[in-house]
């Protein structure tokens, strides 16, 4: 059966909780009259996937695709199913990846489709002499760098094999393909879209290529102790491998942007980045995140009088990208400014226990143990009524639900200048700005600036109240879930109508 919308997801709903997952859940729930199929990209079967959401009845199908499940070599035959000519095409394709160019997905699709079973595929692409020779041809591009061959070889395998596997995925027939990020997900969407003729929509919350780039260049795990001597060591000799990885994701984004009918971005800064990465400006549209205001508007806020302890709330994961250490350091400054405060750091810490422990250590080291409390995972709405200001100190963000929710409740906000934080707190258009500021935006990794902003809010409860109201007004006007969902419904409707007028061939 052909579903209305095929969502192509990786690392999110329904198996991982987070911002994008919330958004996907909202879409599915809100559009209960539309059937959704899900293609979920996972690493491998050993990674046990557990549903984090109850699947609504309008999710008709889930197809799991494992990109890093590689079968062992099980034959000794060196038989080749693919011709020399096809391998030449594959080499061209792989060279495009090295350069970060857009990719010819259908060409590879037709080639990999010739390999019927998983073991045939692996024999050809991982263990055959042709694959080896192709890798050697590609290695010539790296020869000027004195690149270690082992590092090259593993990069080669892990850059190319998952992608080849991806392009073997069984096509899920649908009227619309909609991916919640670029990368592998949108690439699969681009392939499905090209083969079936149904349009591809891409909603990008962060900027996938930039996130990967941070991850790759910031990769301290690369030379960590846990890495075995034979493992990939990108830090040594050459950065060419890191570039290669970055270019892979760049290739994937560009390929997807080229195919997509519409690209949605949450806020202005992201739209600008997408265009810089090759997206056609005409096709990029901003649809922000939204929250269900009814839950927040009735919330009673804490009334702070002069002399009461100032309560600061951080709501979010404890993870390096959130730079919680920056916040802790700023609290040290705040204490030295003489502000009597209590900080609640609320959110799950199981994602990166090591980082969490480093944070605890920092709190102890700065003698803040009495002032800072780590609560673990919390019910957000309850806690918003107990704090005077909400804060995030991330080095990277999309459009954070934390600010929308604080705004819904009328709590002022202090955030670092990343993602949509400035747009949310100060406004973007003229009309938006005229509402007034909902708090302060401070530079990234500047604990002192952050402390000064917090102190300003602490010193004037009236001003703080006013900023909370401003933030609430802004959220009500632009970030109401009903509004946002209506916009998506319209987008879907346009696609459906187009198809009615020009019926496409169905697989």
């Amino acid at each position: 059966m052909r579903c209305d919308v095929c969502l192509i997801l990786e690392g999110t709903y329904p198996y991982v909780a987070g911002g994008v997952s919330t958004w996907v859940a909202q879409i599915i729930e809100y559009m209960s009259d539309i059937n959704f199929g899900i293609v979920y990209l996972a690493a491998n079967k050993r990674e046990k996937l557990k549903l984090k959401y109850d699947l609504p009845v309008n999710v008709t199908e889930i197809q799991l695709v494992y990109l890093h499940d590689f079968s062992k070599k099980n034959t000794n035959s060196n038989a080749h199913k693919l011709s020399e000519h096809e391998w030449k095409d594959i080499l061209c394709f792989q060279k495009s990846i090295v350069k970060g160019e857009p990719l010819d997905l259908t060409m590879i699709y037709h080639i990999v489709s010739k390999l019927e079973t998983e073991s045939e595929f692996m024999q050809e692409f991982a263990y055959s002499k042709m694959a080896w020779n192709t890798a050697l041809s590609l290695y010539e591009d790296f020869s000027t760098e004195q690149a270690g061959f082992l590092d090259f070889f593993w990069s080669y395998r892990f850059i190319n094999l998952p992608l080849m596997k991806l392009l073997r995925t069984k096509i899920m027939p649908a009227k619309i393909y909609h991916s919640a990020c670029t990368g592998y997900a949108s690439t699969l969407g681009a392939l499905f879209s090209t083969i079936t003729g149904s349009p591809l929509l891409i909603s990008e919350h962060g900027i996938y290529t930039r996130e990967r780039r941070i991850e790759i260049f910031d990769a301290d795990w690369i030379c960590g102790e846990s890495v075995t001597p034979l493992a990939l060591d990108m830090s040594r000799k050459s950065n060419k491998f890191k570039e290669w990885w970055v270019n892979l994701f760049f290739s994937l984004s560009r390929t997807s942007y080229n195919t997509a009918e519409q690209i949605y971005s949450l806020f202005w800064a992201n739209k600008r980045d997408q265009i810089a990465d090759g997206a056609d400006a005409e096709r990029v549209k901003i649809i922000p995140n939204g929250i269900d205001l009814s839950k927040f508007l009735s919330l009673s806020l804490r009334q702070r009088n002069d002399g009461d302890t100032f309560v600061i709330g951080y709501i979010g994961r404890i993870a390096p990208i959130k730079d919680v250490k920056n916040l802790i350091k700023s609290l040290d400054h705040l204490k030295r400014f003489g502000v009597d405060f209590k900080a609640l750091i609320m959110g799950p810490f199981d994602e990166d226990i090591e980082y969490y422990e480093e944070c605890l250590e920092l709190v102890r080291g700065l003698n803040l143990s009495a002032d800072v409390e780590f609560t673990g995972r919390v019910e957000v709405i309850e806690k918003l009524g107990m704090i005077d200001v909400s804060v995030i100190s991330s080095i990277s963000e999309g459009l954070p639900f934390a600010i929308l929710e604080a705004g819904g409740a009328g709590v002022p906000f202090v955030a670092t200048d990343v993602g949509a934080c400035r747009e949310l707190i100060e406004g973007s258009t003229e009309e938006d700005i005229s509402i007034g500021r909902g708090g302060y935006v401070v530079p990234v990794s500047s604990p002192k600036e952050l402390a000064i902003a917090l102190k300003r809010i602490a010193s004037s409860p009236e001003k703080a109240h006013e900023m909370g109201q401003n933030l609430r007004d802004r959220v009500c006007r632009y970030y109401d879930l009903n509004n946002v969902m209506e916009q998506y419904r319209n987008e879907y409707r346009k696609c459906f109508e187009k198809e009615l007028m020009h019926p496409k061939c169905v697989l």
Partner: protein
Amino acid sequence: MAGIGFKLRNIISNGTYASLITAYVYGAVISTGPWLISIISIGILAVLCHSLLLTQESILFRTILVYTYMGTLIFTGPIYMSTTRYLADKMFINDYSAILPTFKFVARQSIIYSTIISSAFYFIGGLQVNLALAAIVLFQSVALTWIAMIFLSAARDFTSIVKVFGIGYFMAIALGYAGAYYYRLEGILWGFATGMMILAVLLSSRIFQEFPSQVRIDKGVVGYWKNLPWLMLCGFAYNSALWVDKLIYWIAENKKAAPGPFYAPVNYDTCFFWAYVTIVPALTVFLIRIETSFYKYYADYLGAVSGGATLEEIEEKRKAINSNLWLSISRLLKIQGGLTGVLVLIAPDLLLYFKMPADLIVTLRYTFIAAFIQALFLIMIIVILYFDWQRLAGTLALLALTLNTIFSYYFAFYKSAYSGIGALASFLIALLIGMYYFNRHMEDLIFETFTSQSFGS
């Protein structure tokens, strides 16, 4: 943040590379000393007892001895290969506590199966009960001796092994002589078997001393027996290939040592026996050279692979292995080839000196050359196993067995004047085919090293 798919860390932290250190070579080196001791002891015993036994008794004793050595070597061949591999893997992860419990298990299995095999043969063959019982004890003991050698190779304590062998064979000679003196054939057989049993017990107790362990029994090796079919085949086929021509010549000459399937050894064996003695020194030297020099080059190669060398550097190391190997072989060809050449030339004088029939001249010359070829074949198999190309090793051993069976049958029954040429030709063909494929694998070494790396966890 949006759709963070997979942590790259998970992708890459799996550079598990099954580095492999094999003990095949040690096993082979270490076996030659005891082998020489065995041969010499049996010779001494034969001379000592010459006047104490009737000719027919003497022939039957020799027949049982030869059957025992043939049977135990073929029987333990597959176990030898796979168990060596298991121990090498265990020692690679420094798990020495597994050695003794594995020995207990393998020894138990060996005793059970060697009892079944030898009982079936001797009883169905119709040997007198008291002789059969002694022959069975002998078979179990010698089999256990080979098994114990596998484990003692792990200790790499060459001198103590040789000492124990010396003591064991001294006992065997003394008891055999005493037995022959009082009870003739029965006596010598029981005496010799008892000596072998003492040797097996002494070797086993060395293992208990060397590798104390709390674990009672370790059956992990069974998995290797099941999962390494080519290695098992190689062990079986190689040892069978070495014996099948002898067996065929016994049947062809049809001299019976006793009623039933007890064919007496013939002159053909005697020639091969002396031919083997001539290659032992050179073989030992070469095997030690492999262990020291070849291994170093191979380790260098693996070091370059894992140390992040460029492809060109890795290729150089690969070539270095190859040239080192050929250097060793060319030396062997010169030294052993020269020795064998001289032996072929002076063969008539040797026959005269050792008072052997003059018509053996052709056979003796063929067997000198055949023994040399077989030594080269063994070296090739060992090197192939060093690279862990089990399938190739197994196939080549099977090829040698098949060819030797066909050729020896043809020459034994139809061209008896050319005795020995069958074994020579079959091993020569297997050697040449093997070298062709070995070279091809060697050319592809880097390809195989990399593509065989597992994707890990």
